[in-house]
């Protein structure tokens, strides 16, 4: 019974959300551009 309850208990989301990962990626890219690692991004 207790095992069943444990299995049915909502799993707490760990780590970052997709939103937060997207922001993190954008910040890392901005930092790399600022540091001069990416000098020119073609389009």
């Amino acid at each position: 019974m207790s095992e069943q309850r444990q299995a049915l208990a909502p799993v707490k989301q760990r780590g970052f959300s997709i939103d937060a990962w997207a922001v993190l990626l954008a910040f890392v890219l901005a930092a790399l551009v600022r540091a001069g690692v990416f000098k020119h991004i073609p389009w």
Partner: protein
Amino acid sequence: MASSIAVAQVRPVNPALQFLKIVPGVLLLAAVGYAGKLLEANVGKYAKAHHWTFPNIEYVLWAILLGLAISNTVGVPEIFRAGVATYEFWLKAGIVLLGARFLLGDVLKLGGTSLALVGIEIVGAIAFMTFLGRVFGLKPKLTSLLAVGSAVCGVSAIIATQGAIEADEEDSSFAIAAILALGALSLFTFPLIGHALHLNDHAYGVWSGLAVDNTAEAAAAGALYSDAAGKLAVLTKTTRNALIGFVVLAYAFYWASRGQAQAVGNKAKFLWQKFPKFVLGFLIISTLATAAFFSKEQIGALANLSRWAFLLTFAGVGLRTNFKALSKQGLKPFAVGAIGEVAIAGFTLGLVLAAQRIFGW
């Protein structure tokens, strides 16, 4: 043997495997998006060389059309699906990077005007969709989901509200299908209406951001008109997204007061959980750009990174839209959504035209 089964059941998903799982789909997004860019550059040239009259079709539309063609003919094979589903991730990263193209003063000025328009739009849209849901006899929670989806920000708002008001999965999938189908239609109808009414980039961009529900489709509908309209569509839509927490909280209170959802405990925590973090990222990058943290060349590089991220998003919009699957979701929610969306599009167009006169856009 038993222990090995137990280990297999509790083993956490390997992050490296998860990453590898999305690679094929992300490559497909990039291939479809880049093919759109190549078609934009070459089809016009080819038509001109052969003296054909052919409209100049932007890469945005090519990428969406290619994605739609794949999704609605051969379909997206299983191996690509996880990666294709990352299109919203690229959208959010693209919006944050787009912050470099806005000075904070412009954001506050445009965002302030947008906020006022968004406030009127949200109240009007929720009231009208609730009325329509009652007229068509939809389930009250399905009506709430459709109202939030059309008033605030499409799929994210529906998912956030579903959890908060404890709505059925089925209601949620009906509402999402209706919003996505109507979002796909808006990609083709909005630019045509904008051109027919000779809307300038500013008015059209704000209108797309106000009336198109899903963020990816709002960005695409804006970019299909012009680059400047795309920027304003994203800014206006981001303002709408920023209000998601308040609307979901209001619905959570409403359903909790009727004893059909759990009461909200810590309101500040609830609002923070629902607040889209990419809005903050956008404001931070915009503040840094305003403070001259980036040189002119660096701002150009960030703007191009943002364009690449949007390119993946636009390819994803086409690839994940399957009209056959959407049509299976039932006619009534779609009819309510369609009538509501047409009314909201007309209402917001009126708002934008009035604002254009007042603010001299």
